[in-house]
């Protein structure tokens, strides 16, 4: 199976402070990957590198074979990123945010799937409201909808279910699962929610002090699920080891 996201020897930090050291992993098509780890371990920094918001100090990131450093345009065409709600432009409306994203990805319009998801998430009534008047959960919905514009191969989400009501979170999780299976894409999600790892993720890894300390590939995660094992205990044991 072809790799959608390939990270080799990634190093990154802020100024003199190194946050990520020699991170390497590959995500094949159709995989939901959950990135776990304690607060401040570098999860968001890793995602910032993957989406091109932070220049790594070393290593290589490739999306669907296109290097983010050398061919950023082609790599980003295959990427959808749900930014933090506070990064959304406060003085544009939801509709205008969608218009800008669609234009940036050179689309002819927004797909009916996405509009149907907006309707399901009950976002449609807020399409023409300014972002600064939306609640945190509604902004989070907009952020995820923007990430899905253009049917991207790689979807990157950072704690994207925070602030969402349980019904919307469930709709979104099911939609994302269906999306990566239909599209043959990859979902990279940084999260603290073990429920997602237990029920939706295909593989997971724990990041501690800037290093991927333990990974649970697809067969191992399936084995944990089949044996009704407690993933929480497995994760706590992994964190406790380091």
């Amino acid at each position, binding site marked *: 199976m072809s790799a959608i996201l390939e990270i080799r020897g990634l190093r990154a930090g802020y100024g003199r402070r190194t946050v990520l050291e020699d991170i390497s992993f590959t995500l094949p098509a159709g995989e939901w990957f959950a990135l776990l780890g304690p607060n401040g371990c570098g999860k968001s920094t890793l995602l910032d590198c993957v*989406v091109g*918001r932070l220049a790594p100090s070393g290593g290589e990131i490739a999306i669907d074979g296109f290097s983010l450093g050398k061919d950023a345009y082609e790599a980003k*065409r295959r990427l959808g*990123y749900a930014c933090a709600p506070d990064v959304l432009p*406060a003085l544009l409306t939801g509709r205008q945010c969608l*218009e*800008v994203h*669609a*234009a940036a990805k050179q689309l002819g319009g927004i797909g009916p799937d996405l509009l149907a998801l907006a309707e399901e998430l009950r976002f449609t009534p807020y*399409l023409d409201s300014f972002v600064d008047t939306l609640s945190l959960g509604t902004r989070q919905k907009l952020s995820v909808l923007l990430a899905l514009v253009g049917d991207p191969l790689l979807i990157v989400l950072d704690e994207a279910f925070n602030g969402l009501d349980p019904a919307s979170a469930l709709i979104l999780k099911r939609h994302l699962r269906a999306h990566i299976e239909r599209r043959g894409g990859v979902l990279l999600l940084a999260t603290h929610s073990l429920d997602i790892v237990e029920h939706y993720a295909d593989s997971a890894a724990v990041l501690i002090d800037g290093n991927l300390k333990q990974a649970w590939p697809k067969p191992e995660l399936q084995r944990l699920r089949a044996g009704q094992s407690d993933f929480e205990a497995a994760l706590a044991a992994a964190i406790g080891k380091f």
Partner: protein
Amino acid sequence: MALLLAGALGASFWAAGSVIAPGLTALRRHGLLCLGLAAVATAVLVARRRSLERARFLRSWLAAVPVRSSAARWEALLIETFPASAALILIASLALIAALAFARRADIVAVWANLSGGVVLGVIISYLAPPPKPVDLPPGSRYVPHRNVRQAAPVHPSLAALGQWPIRQLFAWAQPKAVARAIIPILVMMPLGTTADTAMIVIALFASTGALLLACSAGLSVSRLAMRWLAPLPVRSRAVIRAFLLPSCAFILGAGAMTALLLIAFNASFRSSIMVGASSALIGCLLFGAALSWNARARGAR
């Protein structure tokens, strides 16, 4: 650094003594007016700060910390009267430097006493007067003109919204209350006998130059935010710059042209009015363009 600044100020006071002396005499002659103005300004400033700080404290992470009520009262007093304390120190420092560099010490002492007395009086008034209404800042978009779109209208991919963003930011900053407050000193400064026509032109001039300045600052602020938002998107920097620049520059040029026209109506010479309008618009557009290019380059470097 402070000593260097004091030295520079002292030297400039000493060098410009002949210009400052009549000003000092005038300030001393209108001592009561200076005292009154300082008192009103301080009272308004401290009362507003008190209201803002109290609203902020209710949401502060320290709100639940047990503090003795006497200590809390003193701390609140220090925080709320900080601008007045800073003004007192500034006035005293300027007076001291002027007294060292200048011979007219009696005038300096009188002006210092009037201004400082006004500030102290203002603080007292602000605490005696009833507290202002609690401040509840509305979202910036409340003041942004916006065309309603049909609910069922399709989403048309376009970067045009980026061009509206700086202008919307301008409207969000120029809230009616802020504009009204800014106009008051302009009206107060107009000499007696000013005709209504002149007053209208002065206010319009204030509006056009204010719009020009705000448009430039909004452009600078928004371009940074936009590049952060757009960083993960496959959009060419050239396209983003074009989408931003055209409407904002048209707005800035319009404000510059309006300034020039108002200056002509204010009996300034045609040549100098055009010069002022054109140069301010040009500087505004260049500043905005440079900020956009800088931020776009930083985005491209990632």
